[in-house]
């Protein structure tokens, strides 16, 4: 019997400081043992352990196509995330995963896809975007709306520059309030979503802070997206990640095993979801 409570070890390969205030850092982890390598799909998450301090769930930010690493972007906010921020390159950490379900990339094949993200929750959306770009011919038009409070708080800034150069991808960047020198969009994600026109026959993936999700989903309905083609990722406090400890339970679902990815259709049936 596999013991899913026991993490395996990975080495911190590279650390990127994503924001000047240092609240956001990205960690590329490399496998120590080949046999620990696992298959996963964009949207899944892992439990990240610092032994003696605890563990926390984070969405996998790398794409399955980036085979040698696992990437996580961590917002520093409490006890475990603080410890993660103290890590240095070469340190050893514990990982359990892959946990949870994924964005329905099988259904997206041959279809247009709209990706809407807010803040540092762009992690699993990066995984999805990189995955689709690596398999570009499998998908139709790809549109991305990405919002952050201010220009400093976008993550993956270097990659964004690369994405902006591509002609097979439409990228809309927006910040909450105008800032000198910012020549892209301004306004909250739900508002911008309303302004940017896209075809409601596409599939749509939304991920961001709870408040953003809450206000963006109805906008998508307004535009004409059917509930079953809108997907989002929910977040709740977690411990076990395998449906035992009860912490992430909402309605008859457990976010850690039935989610974190749910369609809007499913979400409407779950009390307390939004």
């Amino acid at each position: 019997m596999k013991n899913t409570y026991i993490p395996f070890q990975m080495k911190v390969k590279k650390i990127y400081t994503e924001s000047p205030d240092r609240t956001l850092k990205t960690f590329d982890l490399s496998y120590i043992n080949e046999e620990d390598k696992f298959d996963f799909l964009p949207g899944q998450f892992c439990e990240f352990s610092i032994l003696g301090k605890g563990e926390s769930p984070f969405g996998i930010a790398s794409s399955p196509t980036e085979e040698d690493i696992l990437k996580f972007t961590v917002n520093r906010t409490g006890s475990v995330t603080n410890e993660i921020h103290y890590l240095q390159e070469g340190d050893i950490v514990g990982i359990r995963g892959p946990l949870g379900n994924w964005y329905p990339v099988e259904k997206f094949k041959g279809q247009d896809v709209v990706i809407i993200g807010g803040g540092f929750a762009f992690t699993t959306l990066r995984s999805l975007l990189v995955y689709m770009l690596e398999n570009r011919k499998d998908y139709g038009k790809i549109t991305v709306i990405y919002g952050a409070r201010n220009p400093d708080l976008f993550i993956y800034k270097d990659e964004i520059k690369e994405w902006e150069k591509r002609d097979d991808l439409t990228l809309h960047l927006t910040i909450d309030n105008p800032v000198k020198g910012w020549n892209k969009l301004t306004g909250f994600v739900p508002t911008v979503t309303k302004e940017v026109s896209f075809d409601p026959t596409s599939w749509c993936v939304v991920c961001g802070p709870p408040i953003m999700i809450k206000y963006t989903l109805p906008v998508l309905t307004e535009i004409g997206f059917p509930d079953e083609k809108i997907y989002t990722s929910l977040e709740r406090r977690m411990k076990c990640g395998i449906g035992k400890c009860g912490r992430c339970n909402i309605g008859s679902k457990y976010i850690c095993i039935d989610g974190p990815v749910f369609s809007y259709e499913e979400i409407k049936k779950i009390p307390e979801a939004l």
Partner: protein
Amino acid sequence: MIKIKKSEFSEFIKNLQKNYSVFAPVTDGKATAFKKIKSADDINNKILNTKRSPKEIFFPQSEVLFQYTERGMEVPKREEKPFAIWGMRNCDTKSLLMLDNVFGEAHQMPKKDMYKDPYWKEKYDNCLVFNLACNEPLSTCFCNWFGGGPFDKTGSDIFVVETDDSYIFEAVSDKGKKFLKEFKTAEEISDKEIKKIEKLKETAESYLAEKQDVSSLFSKTKEIWDEPIWDEIAAKCVNCGACAFVCPTCHCFDVSDEGKGNKGKRIRLWDSCMFAIFTKEASGHNPRSQSTQRVRQRVMHKYNYFMDNYDEHLCTGCGRCVVVCPVNLDIREVIKKILDYKK
């Protein structure tokens, strides 16, 4: 069916201990609980419903998941003998089946080995459960609401009835059959004794309060999710979590690390959805910050959500929460209130 004389009970337990670690109801100061026993002298067969539920045999209040040193992680070695539990009541044997769903592969489809809880499985899968019939149910017992009963055998390997001078054994599961087959010293029982059991059963059932029809509880709880009735139900609750700790079916836990430097352990500890901190996220956001929301969660999980996944209520009617509640919030009254509620 076979029987042993009460005078042979000590010998029986001694023999059982050769192959099993035996747990049974014991009195421990003022409290009663299932504990690993040294000899039959420790056992108190008069205890109907231990204060703490026997879930702790398989899912202890605190359990080390692994220890770690600079050399790596290690799961603590378990004792090698399988467990035998003597004297469990139907409301508890049934709870084990429910918990085995959760700690097994859960409701996740397709079923995956990675979802099994090895700590529970290791102890539960090899255990032998002796289910002792309840000759004199308590006033707080309501197992009959949920399809159980003082003489119901669900979840047991061997069903045991205590008569004036004997213990009568009936094999229920394959494991139980195998055990009884190897059990040579016992004698077969007579027709007279079968009649005696019938009579005991009738008497026991007459002790129970009237059965409440709960067939609409599932749909009703769903209907009233948004109604003000929850404020009324939760008004008294002080969110102490005692109900969850004594409950044989509540299974929520917390995981935390204890250690310094390179040495330490990761432990899981019982937890409860009754506590505000249970769902409090790092950002400060708490989806269940109100007491009403948490009481609703407990009731909904028991009488609606679990049903959705496993087709039964996550409550066996053992009445422990009724006994332990410091403000006398009686779950039976809650159920009746819900069933009677008109929108």
